[in-house]
């Protein structure tokens, strides 16, 4: 078998050294009830690379790749062009097949990369310190709520109604067990987010307010209002961002007063991948909060010869040292996705990110203008970055998405799918446009949408 180097001769020699007469002798401690008489049944036997490749390609061909159809999906997962050199770098065996850098002398590659990544994320978010990544935006969101609880010693979190419903679900799921109370709400279907309503829910027991920026309907609101209100009540503002490219065009959450900024980094370097692996970003504006942060941190130091080097640091926060007192149970994080993000961000740089953001916004404005003209379509947003909400007449949006797909167009995300049971959103379609969207794609969507709505 192509992945197993031991030959039968090797096995015999080794058993002899071990003093066992057969391999079964090494499994004597397994109780009889659990001893099997041979390979597990109902599973295929080993297969050649050729055969496996045929099988997997067969499955892949059953999917419609985003590149093969006009594509307008977003809602927390964004499709951007990833330069070819990103994949070259992450396929380097020294990065791909390394473990968490526990032996820093032979892990400086990963460590320096993480230090650079942390700096990029902190700057993007307008924060002082970012960690070395978490699983994804939604778990980062919960970690932020939990951290706010540790910092404020309070157990109540207020969620904006326009926080990604999956993120809200994750927070609420965890809270069931930790005993935190989560005050969430339905999103107000209006051109501007209902910040006053949100602020009014903050009280003296509130550990944090969680606001998405831009929000799930694509709207952009001035976080500083919420920050002031929260701070006035001794609560922290947790800002959530699912589209990092947006921050090339709009002010950073940190700049607007967010205390903890978390988000999904997938849009840069990682790709769609049907939802995972993604990249949880986590940063704090005030360095004094560092010791309450979850996850790994890479720090600068020097070696025995005085040369600069990097190590994982402040691990007394972590499970492998602190065990049940750790700030989080996370161990394996999203290292390689962080590398992909960092490489792509390095290629973009300040100039590229700003231009990429501008191009996304330009095309999104173009699309909004065009789609608004389709009979039966209303544009909800005044403001948006690269995605916006359309209110559709007639059929529920989920059916329209399905019909568009039948016509070969991946037309958007039905908000009804994300907010089951919220009638007001049954007819809302979230449409996303990136630099990969062509004007031709926009025209196609407009035409097919018209056809479907007719």
């Amino acid at each position, binding site marked *: *078998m192509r992945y*197993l*180097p031991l030959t039968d001769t090797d*096995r015999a020699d080794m058993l002899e*050294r*071990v*003093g*066992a007469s057969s*391999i079964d002798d090494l499994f004597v401690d397994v*109780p009889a009830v*659990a001893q099997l008489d041979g390979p597990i049944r109902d599973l295929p036997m080993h297969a050649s690379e050729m055969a*496996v*490749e045929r099988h997997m390609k067969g499955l*892949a061909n*059953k999917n419609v790749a*985003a590149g093969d159809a006009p594509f307008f*999906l977003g809602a927390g*997962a964004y*499709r951007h062009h990833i*330069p070819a*050199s990103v994949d070259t770098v992450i396929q380097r*065996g020294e*990065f791909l*097949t*390394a*473990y*968490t850098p526990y032996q820093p*002398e032979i892990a*400086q*590659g*990963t460590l*320096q990369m993480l230090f650079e990544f942390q*700096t990029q994320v902190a700057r993007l978010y307008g924060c002082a310190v*970012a960690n070395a990544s978490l*699983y994804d935006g939604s778990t980062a969101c919960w970690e932020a709520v939990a951290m706010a609880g540790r910092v404020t010693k309070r157990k109540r979190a207020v969620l904006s109604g326009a926080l990604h419903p999956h993120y809200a*679900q*994750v927070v609420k799921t965890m809270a069931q067990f930790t005993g935190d109370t989560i005050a969430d709400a339905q999103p107000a279907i209006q051109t501007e987010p209902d910040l006053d309503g949100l602020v009014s829910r903050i009280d003296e027991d509130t550990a944090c307010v969680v606001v998405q920026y831009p929000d799930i309907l694509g709207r*952009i609101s001035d976080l500083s209002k919420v920050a002031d209100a929260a701070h006035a009540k001794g609560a922290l503002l947790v800002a959530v961002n699912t589209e990092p490219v947006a921050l090339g065009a709009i002010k950073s959450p940190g700049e607007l007063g967010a205390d903890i900024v978390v988000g*999904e980094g997938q849009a840069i370097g990682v790709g769609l*991948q*049907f*939802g995972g*692996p993604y990249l949880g970003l986590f940063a704090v504006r005030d360095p004094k909060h560092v010791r309450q942060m979850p996850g790994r941190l890479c720090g600068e130091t*020097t*070696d025995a010869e005085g*040369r600069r080097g990097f190590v994982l640091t402040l691990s007394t926060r972590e*499970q*492998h040292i602190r065990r049940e007192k750790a700030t*989080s*149970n996370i161990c394996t994080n999203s290292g390689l*996705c962080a590398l992909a993000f960092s*490489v792509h961000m*390095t*290629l973009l740089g300040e100039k*590229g990110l700003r231009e990429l953001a501008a191009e996304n*916004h330009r095309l999104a404005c173009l699309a909004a203008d065009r789609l608004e003209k389709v009979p039966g379509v209303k544009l909800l947003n*005044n403001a948006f970055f690269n995605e916006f909400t359309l209110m559709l007449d007639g059929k529920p949006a989920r059916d329209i998405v399905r019909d568009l*797909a039948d016509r070969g167009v*991946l037309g958007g995300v039905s908000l*009804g799918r994300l907010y089951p049971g919220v009638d007001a959103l049954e007819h809302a379609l979230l449409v996303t446009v990136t630099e990969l969207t062509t004007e031709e794609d926009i025209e196609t969507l407009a035409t097919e949408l018209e056809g479907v709505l007719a």
Partner: protein
Amino acid sequence: MNAPNKSGWKPQMETSEDGIHTGPATTTGNHALMLEEPLLFEIGHAEVTGVDLPDIDESAPTRLAGLERSEPVGLVGLTEPETVRHYTRLSRQNYGIDLGFFPLGSCTMKHNPRLNEKMARLPGFADIHPLAPQQTVQGALKVIDELANWLKTLTGMPGVAMSPKAGAHGELCGILAIRAAHTARGDAREVVLVPESAHGTNPATAAFAGYEVEDIPATPEGRVDVEALKARLGPDVAAVMITNPNTCGLFEKDFRTIADAVHEAGGYVYCDGANFNAIVGRVRPGDLGVDAMHINLHKTFSTPHGGGGPGSGPVVFSEALMPFAPLPFVRKGEGGNFELVEEESREATRGQTFGRMTAFHGQMGMFTRALTYMLSHGADGLKQVAEDAVLNANYILRSLEDILHAPFADSGPCMHEALFGDKDFGGGLSTLDLAKGLIDEGYHPMTVYFPLVVHGAMLVEPTETESKASIDQFITAFRSVTERALAGDQSLKQAPYYAPRRRLDETAAARKPKLAWSEPEK
């Protein structure tokens, strides 16, 4: 990239105190193929980019609610040539499985097959959106279903939750299901029992889920003390978390007995499956009374560790816990089509799900890799995997026990890991010194100081993808470094000598943390 050396390396230094840099010092700080590399922020520029995009039309109208960015982000860019070189040079300061033997105990650093990488990159898998209309992603849903089926069959368990993002996330999934099950029957319990030998994520997870954590005593032979455990069981104990094979490298003989006792007492049995590689295809945890167990696809099923992740930690469930599994999950619908069960169709489900753990459906990119790996090995190959992994570990244990303290050498054969301690090291040398000595020999050290139950623990996990020649050379090197440690050879205190960096000052790093680059004050 090679801008003037900023790393603090001192060119004037003719000889470092230990003499290894004798031979002319270099002005660059480089040593032929061992290249110094400045930080990105020291070589990049705000106006440089490696991505060609249209220039910004400042006059174009925007709809950004007046929140247009006014300050620079503070990023720097590199062109493609500089980028590729920056990361290539950095990568060369890393050790990986592709370079050599990486016996990091408990981490199962096996070879990462390249077919996995190729399959995961097929546009049909890599370029599909998690919220795409389900009729356009039937192949992806089938991948999840096929993988789920493999996992259930290999473990002999009826259910599986695919969304957990890594082992610790899987532990959380299992513990939450247990908690939900108790709550569902109005049976509030506060305690989870965890052995001291357990991985840190176990107690951390239990605490994260709101439980008190209590220790399970161990026997001198390195296994759970069944009698003591039984004695502790009671109406307050929600679950036990036991790693099997355990972190001392031993199979928990009495697991079944323990499981029965726990069930007897109304609790559930969580099994940490990180060590599944020792038994995959040979032993089904379902036959041992497990209620929930996570599987690290990035260990047993060969998906790459990537310098810290991503991983994937699906959790298999017993009948008792299945109803509480998280959303979303995939199910065969009418007409053989696959459906994704989400909140939207929650009512359509058994409805007892404890909720959602992550935004989407889990680590699809790891699923395609793991399924590719499983299909390649098949049921027969996976059995061979376990057998070779265990054989390699026993071979190492028996080849070193004569000179290295092996606390549980008499507790029977080890499973896929060999555990040693630092007893009898001379001259104040420690496990750490030995580990650093192995670095100079061209190896990544084993896991050190874990599990906590053995002094100066060294946990060696060879995996099945090492050749006998590779292991024999490792044994030779390990013996020679061990002899130096026993003899108290002080030169070990300075090791490593040949790595890109000598020992790094971790205390200084923690005392005054520098966690992001900042412009040097002029």
